[in-house]
């Protein structure tokens, strides 16, 4: 089971350690530092690092490495999932998960970690339960506590801890009862030189913000549930009902949570909402290269493509770029060779383009590699897979809640090869 946890910042300093069994010397992290040194990029550190007596499993989040030390055979995914949960909890409690925030709240952090894991076994990882045990710090509460001497540690056993619905506390009360659902789809795609799709898939999630009094029992049905053949549910969803009727039936947690995530695989046809025309060429013996990019909408079901951001890692030999965008602004970082172009909205009548020349270092040979173009965009009010919610009903409570559903499509890892 998980023995210890070390938090390491970007400059390679351990700024927090927590041990759940006996104390493991922080020198164990030397193996991690070695791996860190070998890695070309911070994110290239291997997730599992063996040492003579331990294994180090690390995740990098918010520029902090969370390094877990384990000693016996433990499922690595178990450890990684737990570390993710730690990160989420910190973010939930402190708004951000940064070294400063953690140091500012070190005692709460310690109390949280102690509450989340006992002897390496996860104890309470649901945000609802944790918040009942340890109240999140707010400036007001800190002041009040200091004056009155009260504590930010709950004195009672959290109600959800052992109930059949551990994710929900009892006695929830709201004056405005509302339930919002966001259907967010991300397109991961690789488009080849000629513009044809090599692989495209959709990662979708339905995130919910439910503020409902009492113990509501919700059902959510879809117009086209057949799209959802590869789904991961929040534990609150009744799986049998889904299997039988393709209806999501659940008692929701209180507040924000991810109801389900789904995956529309590359075997289905995925609509690609933007296209890129590009011409990036270097000539042998010349220190100048041509650079032309034009973006256009494609299969957007009439919706506007917004917040478009194009970025590309140009070859190492590139010295500078002198380009002119038809709209938006571009930057080129001559050190990292990262070109990024903030396009904004695509106007189908007047397609945005970025044209000009790039200069190579004098004497540098024609670059071997072709840059890949990364595109980010958003399309409001559209789930590109075609998923549509049919209706949302509530049982178990008498009031009429306010319900809302929003759709959005975003680019995930959307890459165009040149």
């Amino acid at each position, binding site marked *: 089971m998980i023995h210890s946890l070390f938090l390491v910042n970007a400059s390679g300093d351990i700024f927090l350690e927590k041990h759940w069994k006996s104390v493991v010397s922080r020198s164990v992290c030397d193996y991690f530092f070695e791996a860190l040194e070998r890695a070309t990029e911070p994110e290239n550190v291997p997730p599992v690092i063996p040492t003579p007596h331990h294994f180090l499993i690390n995740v990098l989040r918010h520029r902090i490495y969370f390094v877990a030390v384990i000693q016996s055979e433990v499922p690595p995914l178990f450890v990684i999932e737990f570390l993710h949960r730690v990160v989420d909890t910190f973010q939930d409690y402190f708004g951000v998960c940064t070294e400063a925030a953690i140091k500012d709240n070190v005692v709460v952090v310690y109390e949280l970690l102690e509450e989340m894991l006992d002897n390496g076994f996860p104890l309470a990882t649901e945000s609802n339960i944790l918040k009942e045990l340890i109240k999140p710090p707010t400036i007001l509460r800190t002041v009040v506590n200091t004056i009155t001497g009260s504590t930010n540690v709950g004195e009672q056993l959290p109600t959800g801890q052992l109930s059949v619905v551990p994710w929900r506390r009892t006695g929830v009360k709201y004056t405005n009862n509302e339930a919002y659902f966001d259907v967010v789809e991300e397109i991961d795609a690789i488009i080849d030189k000629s513009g044809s799709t090599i692989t495209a898939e959709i990662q979708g999630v339905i995130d919910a913000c439910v503020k409902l009094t009492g113990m509501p029992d919700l059902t959510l049905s879809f117009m086209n549930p057949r799209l959802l053949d590869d789904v991961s549910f929040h534990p609150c969803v009744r799986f049998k009902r889904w299997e039988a009727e393709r209806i999501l039936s659940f008692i929701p947690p209180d507040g924000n949570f991810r109801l389900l995530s789904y995956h529309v*695989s590359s075997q289905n046809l995925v609509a690609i909402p933007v296209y890129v025309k590009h011409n990036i060429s270097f000539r042998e013996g010349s220190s100048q290269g041509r650079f032309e990019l034009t973006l256009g909408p494609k299969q957007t079901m009439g919706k506007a493509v917004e917040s478009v951001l194009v970025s590309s890692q140009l070859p190492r030999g590139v010295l500078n770029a002198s380009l002119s965008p038809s709209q938006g602004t571009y930057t080129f970082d001559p050190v990292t060779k990262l070109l990024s172009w903030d396009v904004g909205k695509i106007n189908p009548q007047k397609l945005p383009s970025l044209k000009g020349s790039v200069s190579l270092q004098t004497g540098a040979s024609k670059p071997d590699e072709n840059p890949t173009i990364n595109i980010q965009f958003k399309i409001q009010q559209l789930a590109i897979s075609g998923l549509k919610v049919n209706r949302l009903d509530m049982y178990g409570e008498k009031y009429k809640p306010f319900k809302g559903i929003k759709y959005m499509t975003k680019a995930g890892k959307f*890459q165009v090869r040149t």
Partner: protein
Amino acid sequence: MEWASQLCENRGLGSKMTDSKYFTTTKKGEIFELKAELNSDKKEKKKEAVKKVIASMTVGKDVSALFPDVVNCMQTDNLELKKLVYLYLMNYAKSQPDMAIMAVNTFVKDCEDPNPLIRALAVRTMGCIRVDKITEYLCEPLRKCLKDEDPYVRKTAAVCVAKLHDINAQLVEDQGFLDTLKDLISDSNPMVVANAVAALSEIAESHPNSNLLDLNPQTINKLLTALNECTEWGQIFILDCLANYMPRDDRESQSICERVTPRLSHANSAVVLSAVKVLMKFMEMLPKDLDYYGTLLKKLAPPLVTLLSAEPELQYVALRNINLIVQKRPEILKHEMKVFFVKYNDPIYVKLEKLDIMIRLASQANIAQVLAELKEYATEVDVDFVRKAVRAIGRCAIKVEQSAERCVSTLLDLIQTKVNYVVQEAIVVIKDIFRKYPNKYESVIATLCENLDSLDEPEARAAMIWIVGEYAERIDNADELLESFLEGFHDESTQVQLQLLTAIVKLFLKKPTETQELVQQVLSLATQDSDNPDLRDRGYIYWRLLSTDPVAAKEVVLAEKPLISEETDLIEPTLLEELICHIGTLASVYHKPPSAFVEGSRGVQHKRIPARAGSGESAESSDVGQSGPSEAPPAVIPSQGDLLGDLLNLDLAPPTATVPSVQPSMQMGAMDLLGGGLDSLMGDDSDTPGGRTEVQSPQPSSDYRERELGGDIGGSPSMGAGLGAAPAAMPASLGAAPAVGGGLGDLFDLGGGVGMPTGSYVAPKTVWLLAMKGKGLEISGTFARRGGIIQMDLTLTNKAMSVMTDFAIQFNRNSFGLAPAGPLQVLTPLSPNQTIDVSLPLSTSGPVMKMEPLNNLQVAVKNNIDVFYFSCQYPLSLLFVEDGKMDRQVFLATWKDIPNENEAHFQIKDIHLNSDVASNKLQGSNIFTIAKRTVEGQDMLYQSVKLTNGIWVLAEMRIQTGNPNYTLSIRCRAPEVCQFVYLCYELVLKN
């Protein structure tokens, strides 16, 4: 005080009030200040002081000096303060064991608190105080908490048992906590069940003897019910536990699968992967024509694909596991090739894994796509990745014949890029393609030769030289090319030198007239000017061959080479089976069996049961950490022998070797060659390959190709070695578990045997039948007693040149009636160079005849070639039965009853164990300590042993503190046994 005023200031200014204030230090000395504050009367001040202490602790400062002051704050009704003090206690109790006792009272009191949260907190913290002295005070409160009315307290207490076991295992057993824990599996609350399972699993890991997780259909049913209702973490524990169960039949298997399948849709990837493990394992039992089997296969793909859209770390672990799954059941993901396509900003560790799986999934149907992708990758920035992509193209060519032409042209395109490392990798893989498809793509040789000058890596140079030598007749200036390499002969690496030597000899045999000078030059360079024995040996062999009989030399050196196999770096099947049982674990990430690398505090036990038909890896001998002969060879093969062996094997064997008569060892063969000239070489050539096997590790065919190539290009790590993640480590693991053909049986063997008694000592295997006496069959073995079953663990090695089949075994009558309890299960024919491990269960109901020595066993083994006889001696401890613990009274009576002249005295020397350890050790071999007495610093242990034939042996062992020599007195009605019992004592205590 200073700090307090600072606090007031903060409040006055309304500035941000955060915990960072706890880090501010004062000039006077922090500890001193804190001490004063901790002893303050004001509650609030106390709490703030404890917070400061905790803050210091988190950054690794030593604040243990404040122990008494902090513990004084423990008696409080302020829960936050209590928690903080507990946090402190857990960290420092160990360093202040005497002080820690101060805390005991509060724990005991808190365990009675009306608030379940406080009861749980107390029991939780108690277990974390890792101080031996106080653990016994904690037993009573823990016992109460295990039976608490509140499930929250019970589930916390369950974990506490595991903690306590880690500190003092004996205590936990004596107090009966393990039984209570087992009862909790039937608890009404699913969380309690999950925690009980988790605790038991953890204890079982360090406690192989106990049958802790005794899984039967009833408990399985309870677990499956709890599975639906407990938290995600609990689900992982339960699924991992389920994976150890062995269903009785396919119907039970199916019903478990059906109930586990919904877990595949869980949001927690660890739950998903644990569920995949259970399904992959239980699927083995389902008949393939069952509809459900097909449904299940289909259901497995989507969750695996989904794992790949998660964060990169999760992807990495998922990919390592998918790599196993794809090898075991390629059909699951055969249509999902595209999800493994690499995104340019994937971390390198994800890229490399994806690439590996792409090649495994490559087939005629998708090869075009795959090749286009690989070509794309070959132009990326990351050098490691590019190299691997180029090699992957070569692997595709070898795997999918239809694509070979396209692969070659892709490789040629890449060579045109002139990117140095791309060219070198391409040449290395083209050499493999030539090996696979001889006389097909030689037209590209000209292009390759153009790049000769840019090659600076040994592997690429060696590959190029091999190509030039192999096709010397088609390359007009082959002699010039090779000569150019010869200039810097002594600066080249061994690999290149060996290759150059062979290539020039080949050239000479093909174009003898114009290259005489060249060959003489290289032979003298290799033999006279080199210090490298491999090179010298190879040079001498060629020299003699050439000078004595050029025709024979031609036959030998230019012999047709065996084709290389399609799939390289596949994980050896037995290991794969084991790893499938460990999906989701560290073992699956490293593709090594858990025993090979997880050190843990006590080591991890193999999950398997003994003696299922035909299986039986080298069994416990490797577990116990003995370097038995089955394990040693891979490690100790000297590279010299390897290379020379390769050479002989490759170049001599195919045309001539027919009759296997294995006699001289490797060394002898080589000596003859050098001393006796060509005659002996030709005379011995059929022996030498046999001799070669003497040093060859018992590796099955997956190694075959590598070896062949190794011989050819001088021991270079072949393509497979470069690509596969593990090959470098594989031989070791293969050596440890070399059984082949165990198949399905093994899979279940691995699964079922949690908590198998493995305590008894098992001697390392010794060679019983030498290959030269067994017409090529070598048998080594040992005896073991596992869970009351006597087993003979055999390793059969075929060192002859032909396949062996039809194995059978028989024993001569012997002193204790040992006889095989079943036939010798060697299911598959034993092919040359193959090694198989077999466990033969023995019974004691055979015919009895007194042997000399008493423990002598005469064995006959038959195969399709002949019947072989050998004799071996078994340790008498084999016959010590499990119920050999005599009642005290009976012991006393019996002791007196046996005449004094039947008593034998022995000295066991040089044992540095205390009496408890010794007694524990002996108990592992069924020598039971009945009573212990301490007289004047001398421990007297009274022990009893019962043999399978009902003979009782009583012993008294005297241990004097500080004296490494034990005195042993043994009484038995059959005095001739005493000597052998003594030998067992010695064996057990010394190992």
